[in-house]
């Protein structure tokens, strides 16, 4: 089992608290190291988070980007992320926007 930590944005805390999650960092025990495994884990075990993070086609939702450890992996669509490794920290990035 590979465990990565998913760092979620501060502003999603309420939603996750309501869903029974805790804090800002969620350890994910992944059965697979690739993106598909990541999507499967989220969809099955963290559906509320998956709804915010993923599009219907299984890529990142519009405007969402992720970084792994210290490296940015782009935004929206299916990111060309390298296979996750044990101990990786996946940071979810949503755009800062103002009217």
């Amino acid at each position: 089992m590979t465990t990565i930590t998913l760092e979620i944005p501060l502003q999603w805390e309420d939603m996750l608290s309501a869903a029974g999650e805790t804090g800002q960092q969620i350890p994910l025990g992944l059965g697979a190291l690739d993106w598909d495994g990541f999507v499967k884990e989220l969809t099955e075990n963290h559906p509320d988070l998956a709804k915010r993070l993923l599009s219907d086609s299984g890529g990142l939702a519009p405007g969402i980007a992720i970084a792994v450890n210290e490296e940015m992996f782009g935004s929206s669509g299916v990111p060309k992320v390298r296979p996750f490794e044990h101990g990786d920290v996946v940071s979810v990035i949503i755009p800062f926007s103002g009217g």
Partner: protein
Amino acid sequence: MKTLVFPPGLMDRVTASIRKRHPVKSFGYFISDTKAGIPTDFIIFEGNNRNARGWKEEFESFGQYFVDHSDAGFVATPEEIWKFKKETRARGMFEVGVFHSHQRHPANFSRVDYEMHMKSVGKQLWHVIFSMRTSDYPQARAFEIYDSGVSEIRLLDSEKPTTEERLARPKGIPLRDKSTLLADARELLRSDENGLPLHVDPQTTIAAIEDVLSTDDQSLIAELLSTGIFRDRERRYDEFVAEDMIPLKGGDFLMGTDRGKSRPYCGETPKHHVTVRDFSIGRFVITDALFSKWSLQSNIHVKDRTQPKVNVTWYEAKLFALWMGCRLLTEAEWEFACSRGEEWQWCCKSESDLVEHAWYSENSGGRIHPVGLKKPNSCGVFDMHGNVWEWCEDNYDDSFYSRPAGVAPVNKGPGFRNKDGAQETNRVTRGGCMHSHAEMCRSRYRFHEPPSFSARDLGFRLCR
């Protein structure tokens, strides 16, 4: 109202950075050494994805204003956000607030700002808006954002005196007697042979007039209003103003908005009973042509005689009104005349009808239009929604509606204001302007500016 204290120099630094970028929109974060602490530094984002695929469509869905102005709105790039997050973390610092600039709007919080903040920033952080519509006199307002709405926070620069400190009479200076107050005011009100003022500083003049008015001595006030530049005010009223004044019967009405229905607008609650006395209101806002009769502006080039007079301070507006035998509307009178006691948001039943009555974000083309081209409201007053904001007499206080209103309320108490060394008490502005979204043109929408502020979309209307 809560207070947000800025450490010495920080507000000046961020304002300078925003001014340097203007007219490019600014967006950034305030950071602190401690979680939810006072801000100690800030960052401004450079890249803007506002017009990238997906975002452009989202912004344009907010209305015609965002179609007409591709620079309205800001979306930071993921790369820059990530860099910011990493650097902030590396410095052991925390995000505590967010800010963005308005190029054309006042520093007010809009529905779009609210939605964007809730979606992308989060209610843990406060939000400062810097208005650059008068770029050499930037305005900043701070807001807290909740699920239930928005409330304004008092911004305080720790280097500058508070309003209360500034307004406090220094110890050892004796109160002047009434005759001295009158003599001081009369000196400032001296006129030339044409009845035009010799003294050209409206702020000083208004301060002297207010000193006399505050005595509540009616004979003294009558003497003041018959002296110097005021000597021919009744003749001027009859000659220039009277035919465009509409008499309104006073009465009782519900002012403001119910709690829970005001999101994301500030200072409108609670809805409360107010009684106004009979008064007359100008059919139009003051035009360039009418204002040009005032000596201080006698050299202006009047392009269009029906163009609203703008770029006028509250002091100038008030002095001009008195010179014309009138006064400014109180905000209770303004709302009474605008809403006519109806529950509607505007003088018309729905937003779709607003285009018949107002020049605003959806139909103005971004410019001010001559007065009186749209339909008047039910009492025959034109342009109360949109085109230009209108100064009112009252000092702004977001808690004023919570106090007993009584008859003919007007707030003369201290409000708040922060600006380079010269703190003032802000005055109420109403009605919205040609750039305003429909929500800001609502009958009950309140905003405020310093009395020495002027802008190309801010005018006034007479009352008597």
